[in-house]
């Protein structure tokens, strides 16, 4: 059924493509198209066929979309079985977990993880933005250690965890000050004493 759906969908898309090419090569006059449309609209049976074809196309589109999404979802999970059934963990959940690690190490400004489950084990790609004062080898090895132990602790898996870190940017103090000025927030701005009080 699924193969039939994909085949049908591909045929329809190919037919649309061929029609567009014929139209571009000037082999099809707009008048001919209008005449065909008029003939089709005049007959009740042809209108019924067109309507049903439309409904069928919508159904096939949904089934193809579901097929693609289903496959995509299956690839993006880690699964294990228990006595009561199966437990699947979305890789986005593991990404959430790693994202939370940014708060543990103060030298990390931003952290973007990407988790992939491969035959070798779990592959974690982390893109980080560091603060200027940070010692990169020390911070990155600490992050690798923390991420590995946290994943093992929380997921309870014994599979190999490969953690790759990519430092994308180092934010200097000047950058941070410029950003503060752009956003209009300046911590050094003097405050007016008792400005929050008013007469009632």
């Amino acid at each position: 059924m699924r193969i039939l759906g994909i085949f049908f969908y591909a045929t329809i898309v190919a037919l649309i493509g061929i029609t567009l090419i014929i139209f571009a090569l000037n082999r099809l006059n707009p008048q001919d198209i209008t005449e065909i449309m008029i003939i089709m609209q005049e007959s009740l049976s042809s209108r019924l066929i067109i309507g049903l074809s439309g409904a069928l196309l919508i159904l096939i589109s949904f089934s193809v979309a579901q097929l693609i999404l289903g496959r995509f979802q299956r690839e993006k999970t880690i699964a294990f079985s228990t006595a009561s059934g199966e437990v699947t963990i979305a890789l986005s959940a593991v990404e959430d977990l790693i994202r939370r690690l940014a708060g543990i190490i103060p030298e990390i400004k931003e952290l973007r993880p990407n988790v992939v489950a491969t035959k070798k084990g779990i592959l974690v790609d982390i893109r980080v933005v560091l603060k200027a004062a940070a010692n990169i080898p020390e911070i990155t090895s600490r992050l690798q250690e923390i991420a590995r132990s946290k994943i093992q602790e929380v997921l309870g898996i014994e599979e190999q965890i490969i953690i790759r870190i990519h430092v994308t940017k180092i934010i200097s103090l000047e950058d941070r000050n410029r950003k503060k000025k752009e956003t209009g927030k300046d911590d050094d701005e003097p405050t007016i004493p008792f400005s929050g009080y008013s007469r009632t």
Partner: protein
Amino acid sequence: MHGEESRNELGTIKIHKNVIASITSLAAQEIDGVNRVGGDFKSGLLKLINRRQHWVIKVEINKNEEVHIEVPIVIKYGFNIPDVANKVQESIRNSLEKMTNLSIKDIDVNVQGIERGQ
């Protein structure tokens, strides 16, 4: 949506799939470490249109009247996922067996995300 049906001398007793899903949802939320039931694309859509969360739970009953359940959950940060998932499965099995006398075949737990506890 069909449900489980049993017959006695007075008539039939039907348990709707929504009831099984509701019990599943409540049993899952009782476990320490479960932030909420849902977290997938479908539950996000249902949340937008204000539908009940148990709609995201998939309940299937086969010809042998065995129940198969799929429940998506979001776990609180800091909890061990397999531990929480096991407890969820146990809690759902106990609650359903106690309240409905149904035969539970599988309880599949899908962990969709990790969030800070509310």
